[in-house]
């Protein structure tokens, strides 16, 4: 439906040619289907599931964060006969990119590799993956090393990301073990570059070291992220709620927190609040 517009350039025009049926792939001794081995690869499963961010087969694996079944709330067993109940949607975000990244990204990553290896932390330990998507560079950083990475990005003269545009959170409830993401956006005024850092922490242990020592601007942003998502920033001078009242229970912008609206009644009809309506996705 909307696959034609806005699809990334790498996507092949007719994905069905590359789709491999899971059953067919599992047939022993079938050497004709070269694109898969014993089971479908994540890309193929995601493609079959309707995900719209897949490159050609063989390109880096997208990061599947969720698989949804059904639409309008009618999954299998709900009595819904419209046919939408059998819909399987795989939600996959762009995965790690391969070199060359393009533009100034390669140089910056190389400098970072050099600095991290020199400091003893090691690039592979600190940076989990490098994603280049839609002209933006995203570094997935391991939480223990976020402060060091920020320090290096700020201080090195070729990187010089002096301006921090703050931290915010994203909650991916289905990405077990990496539910809460803290997203940092950095700007280099000197070199006119922009960068994103992403730290993923599990729900059970949502601690991230605070970067207020490197970027004091993140002070209120970290408080806001704690307020809305429950990510605890260790080392923050005063991590308290900032938007919600001080004694508010829960963290409102998490996906498991209800929108909290009231049903609207008018002359006998009731419209439920937005999070309880049937929805298209």
């Amino acid at each position, binding site marked *: 439906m909307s696959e034609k517009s806005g699809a990334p350039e790498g996507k092949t025009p007719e994905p069905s040619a590359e789709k491999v049926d899971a059953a067919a792939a599992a047939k022993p001794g079938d050497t004709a289907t070269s694109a898969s081995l014993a089971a479908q690869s994540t890309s193929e499963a995601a493609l079959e599931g309707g995900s719209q961010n897949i490159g050609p087969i063989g390109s880096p694996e997208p990061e599947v964060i969720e698989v949804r079944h059904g639409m309008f709330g009618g999954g299998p067993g709900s009595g819904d006969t419209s046919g939408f109940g059998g819909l399987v949607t795989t939600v996959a975000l762009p995965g790690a990119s391969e070199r060359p990244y393009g533009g100034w990204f390669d140089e910056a990553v190389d400098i970072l590799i050099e600095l991290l290896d020199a400091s003893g932390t090691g690039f592979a330990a600190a940076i989990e993956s490098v994603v280049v998507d839609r002209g933006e560079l995203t570094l997935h950083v391991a939480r223990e090393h976020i402060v060091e990475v920020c320090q290096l990005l700020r201080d090195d003269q070729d990187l010089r990301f002096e301006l921090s545009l703050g931290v915010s959170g994203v909650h991916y409830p289905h990405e077990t073990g990496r539910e809460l993401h803290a997203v940092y956006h950095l700007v280099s005024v000197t070199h006119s570059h922009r960068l994103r850092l992403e730290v993923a922490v599990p729900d059970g242990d949502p601690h991230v070291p605070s970067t207020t020592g490197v970027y004091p601007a993140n002070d209120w942003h970290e408080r806001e992220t704690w307020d809305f998502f429950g990510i605890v920033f260790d080392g923050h001078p005063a991590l308290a709620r900032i938007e*919600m*009242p001080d004694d*508010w229970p829960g963290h*409102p912008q998490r996906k498991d*927190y*209800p*929108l*909290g*609206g*009231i049903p*609207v*009644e008018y*002359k*006998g*009809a009731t419209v439920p*609040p*937005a999070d309880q309506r049937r929805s298209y996705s």
Partner: protein
Amino acid sequence: MGIEEAPSGFLLTTVENLVGYFRKGSLWPVTFGLACCAIEMMATGTSRYDISRFGMEVFRASPRQADLMIVAGRVSQKMAPVVRQVYDQMPEPKWVLSMGVCASSGGMFNNYAIVQGVDHVVPVDIYLPGCPPRPEMLINAILALHEQIQAEPLGVNRKEAARAAEAAALAATPTSHMKGLLA
């Protein structure tokens, strides 16, 4: 002592007219602009739409000196006790005009953070929808409030009017039973 002991009947009506006229003549609002409606309220206060012709351009910062609280904008959960406190600090007679849909009913923000209508917190005399209401709409609401103030009964009449209003409310159909064309 005061208005409450005024006589009833014809004399009371004259007193009511006079008192209503004076009260509406210079209704001083308290600065209670919260969000977008506050900007339109400020625009109403400036020379193009000019509520100074109604004697209202002096927005009193202190609620002790104000008669009217125009709740202009969305009332968040954190702000609700402040609204109540400012309302309580205003001396009688006082009126409340809830400006904009957010103050009247929560507006487009049907969620955890917004009080769904400031009438959950303070008694409202005039509801003004709009997002944000134009300055002319605000002036219309203020004029409607002026009419209300002019017609406000005092003394014995006030007691009777309150009793009648209560009886009418008890006998009226609740909103949830108003099926309209759907029944």
